[in-house]
C-alpha cells in the first residue's frame, strides 16, 4: 500500500466571532493518495472550505485549529513554523478558488501574478519566468498566452481567469492541488472545458487533487474517491463507484435522490426535509437527525462514530 500524500486526522476548527464561537469543522478525517482525486461534497457551510484552508494554513487569525493533525509527506503541517508552511504553499500544495472573478488581483497583469509564484519558488530570472508563464498558460489551453500575460484580469472571461488560476496553481508542480469549487461559478460549457482539462493535467502530472464541490455530477465525472461532509463532520467516505451505487448514510442517499435526473422525469423530486443546521446551534447527537427519515432516539442522544464497512468505505451512522 502506498503511503498517503495527505492525511487529515480528527481535524477541528473553530471561529471566534462576535456572535460566539463557531465550531465550523468538528471532526474531519480523510486521506489523499498521490495522483488521486478525492472529492469533498456537502452542503453550503458544512466546512469544506475551512478544511482546505486549514490544510493551506490560511485560516483568518480569528479562526484556529482546535485539534487534529494534518500530515503531508510525513510532516505534521500544524507543527511547522509559519515560514516553513509558507514555503510549502504554492510550491508543494496549491489551491484554486471558487470565484475566478475575484480571486485574481485586479490591478496586476496576469504575467505578473503568475510570474510571481514561479520566481518565488523556482528562483528563475525574468526571461525564464516569462517563458515558463507562457508555457503554463499554454498548457491550460489559453490561446495567445504572450498577449494574455500583458492583460489584466478584468479583460478575461470567467473561464479564462479560472484557467489562469489553474496555471498558477500548477506552475510549480505541486504534489497536492486543492480545488475549491473550481467550476461552480462557470457556465456548463465552460465547466466542461475546465473539467476535461483538470482530468488531463491530473493524469499527466500525478498530482493529488482535493476537489471540493456540491455538484454530484462533477464528482461522478472526475473523482476517484468521495468524502461526504455534513455539519462539520465527515459522514461517509468511499470510492466513487461504491458511493453512487451503494450510498450508506441517509444524507448521502437524500442528496443523490434530490437531484433532477436527465433521463427520468418525475412529478416530484425526493427532497431532504428541513434546513441545514446553524453552526451556532448544532443539534445534539447525530447532527443529521432532525432531517433524517431513519432517526431514532439513539441518534438524538448519541453521536455516531465513523465505522468501517468495507476496506474503503466508512460511514458515520447507526443505521448503516
Amino acid at each position, binding site marked *: 500500500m502506498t503511503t498517503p500524500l495527505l492525511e487529515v486526522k480528527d481535524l477541528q476548527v473553530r471561529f471566534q466571532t462576535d456572535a460566539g464561537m463557531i465550531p465550523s469543522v468538528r471532526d474531519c478525517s480523510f486521506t489523499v493518495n498521490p495522483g488521486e482525486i478525492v472529492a469533498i461534497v456537502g*452542503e*453550503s457551510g458544512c466546512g469544506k472550505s475551512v478544511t482546505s484552508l486549514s490544510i493551506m494554513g490560511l485560516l483568518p487569525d480569528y479562526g484556529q485549529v482546535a485539534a487534529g493533525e494534518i500530515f503531508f509527506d510525513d510532516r505534521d503541517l500544524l507543527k511547522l513554523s509559519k515560514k516553513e508552511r509558507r514555503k510549502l504553499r504554492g510550491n508543494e500544495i496549491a489551491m484554486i478558488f471558487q470565484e475566478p472573478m475575484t480571486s485574481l488581483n485586479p490591478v496586476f497583469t496576469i504575467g505578473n501574478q503568475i510570474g510571481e509564484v514561479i520566481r518565488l519558488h523556482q528562483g528563475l530570472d525574468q526571461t525564464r519566468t516569462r517563458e515558463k508563464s507562457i508555457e503554463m498558460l499554454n498548457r491550460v489551453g489559453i490561446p495567445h498566452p504572450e498577449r494574455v500575460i500583458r492583460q489584466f484580469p478584468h479583460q478575461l*472571461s*470567467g*473561464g*479564462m481567469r479560472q484557467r489562469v488560476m489553474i496555471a498558477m496553481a500548477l506552475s510549480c508542480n505541486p504534489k497536492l492541488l486543492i480545488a475549491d469549487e473550481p467550476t461552480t461559478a462557470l*457556465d*456548463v*460549457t*465552460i*465547466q*466542461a*472545458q475546465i*473539467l*476535461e482539462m483538470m482530468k488531463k493535467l491530473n493524469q499527466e502530472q500525478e498530482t493529488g487533487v482535493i476537489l471540493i464541490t*456540491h*455538484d*454530484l*455530477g*462533477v*464528482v*461522478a*465525472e472526475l*473523482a476517484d474517491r468521495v468524502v461526504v461532509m455534513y455539519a462539520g463532520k465527515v459522514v461517509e467516505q468511499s470510492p*466513487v*463507484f461504491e458511493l*453512487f*451505487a451503494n450510498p450508506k448514510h441517509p444524507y448521502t442517499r*437524500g*442528496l*443523490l435522490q*434530490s*437531484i*433532477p*435526473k*436527465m433521463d427520468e*422525469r*418525475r*412529478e*416530484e*423530486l*425526493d*427532497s*431532504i*426535509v428541513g*434546513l*441545514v443546521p446553524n453552526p451556532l446551534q448544532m443539534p445534539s447527537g447525530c447532527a443529521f437527525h432532525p432531517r433524517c427519515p431513519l432517526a431514532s432516539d439513539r441518534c438524538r442522544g448519541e453521536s455516531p462514530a465513523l465505522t468501517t464497512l468495507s476496506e474503503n468505505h466508512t460511514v458515520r451512522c447507526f443505521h448503516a
Partner: protein
Amino acid sequence: MDEAATSQALLEVKGLKKHFPFKQGIFSRNAGVVRAVDGVDFTIQPGETFGIVGESGCGKSTTGQLILKLMEPTAGEIRFQGQNLTNVTGKQIRQVRRDMQMVFQDPYASLNPRLTVRNIVAESLKVHGLAKSDLDDQVEELLNVVGLGSHHLLRYPHEFSGGQRQRIGIARALALKPKLIICDEPVSALDVSIQAQILNLLKKLQKDFQLTYIFIAHGLPAVKHVSDRIGVMYLGKMVELASQEALFQHPHHPYTEALLSAIPVPDPTKRKERIVLQGELPNPADPPNGCHFHTRCPYAKAICREEEPVFKQIEKGHYTACHFPL
C-alpha cells in the same frame, strides 16, 4: 386581425430586442450597444411552463424583465392576454403587473432587509388596494401556501435561510393571484437539498392555482424537470425552441447538443466522451457576424460566418435557427 389565434396564447413575444447603450468616461458618450436581447419570438399557452436556458449573459433575465416591463424594449411586441403592452404606461402597466409576477434568483437580494415578512408579502396587496381588514389573515394564508407559518410574520429576512427566503419571494409573487410568474433562476442560489423542495413547491402551486411559468435557468436538469417547452438562448437570440421531450431527445441546434453533452451526469458508470465546445461566449457588445454561434460550432461552414440563419419551424412545434440543423 388574427384575434382568434392570439386569444388563446397567454403571452406572445415577437421580435423582442433590448440594446443597452454602454457609456464611456464621465462625460458619457455612448460608445456602443450591448445586444442583450436581439430578436426573440415565442408564445406561451395558459397553464404551461416555458423554460429558458442559456449561458450567463445570453439575455435570459433581460427577456424576463422586458416581459414584465421593468425595462422598455428597444423593439418588438409583447402581447399579454391579447393586450399589446408596447405603449402601456403608468397606471395601466401597474394593472397589467397584477397578472404577471416575478421570482428572483438571489433570495438574499430580492427581499427588502428592512421590512418584516408580513410587510413584504402585504406590500403588493396594499399597493393594489386589495388589503382587507383582515390583512394579517390574508398574509398568513399566503405564507401557509408556501409552507411557512404565522409565527414568521414579524420576522425580518435575515432571520431566514435561503430556501425560506425563496418561499417568501414566492408568497409575494402569489399575493396578487397572477396568471403568469416569471421565475428567474429561482433555485440557482440554493443548496442541492433545498433546490428540490422549491422545485416541488413550484410544481404544486402551478397545479393548485393554474399558474403559467416562465422558468429561467442555466441548470438544464432543473429546467427539464419543470418545463413543458424549452427555449435555448445564445447571445441574445433564441436558437432552439421545442417541447421538453423533443429537445432532449433530438436537439437540432449544435449549441443545444453541446449544452446537453456538457452536463455532468451524476453517475460515475456513465462517464462519457463529451462534446467540449472550444472558446468562450463572445462579447455581446460585439457579436460575431453571421450565425452568432459559428465561432464555437464544431460544424460551422462558410455560410455560417456570413449569413444569419432564420428561426424557423422544422418539425411541428420545434423551431431552430441553424443553417444545418442536426
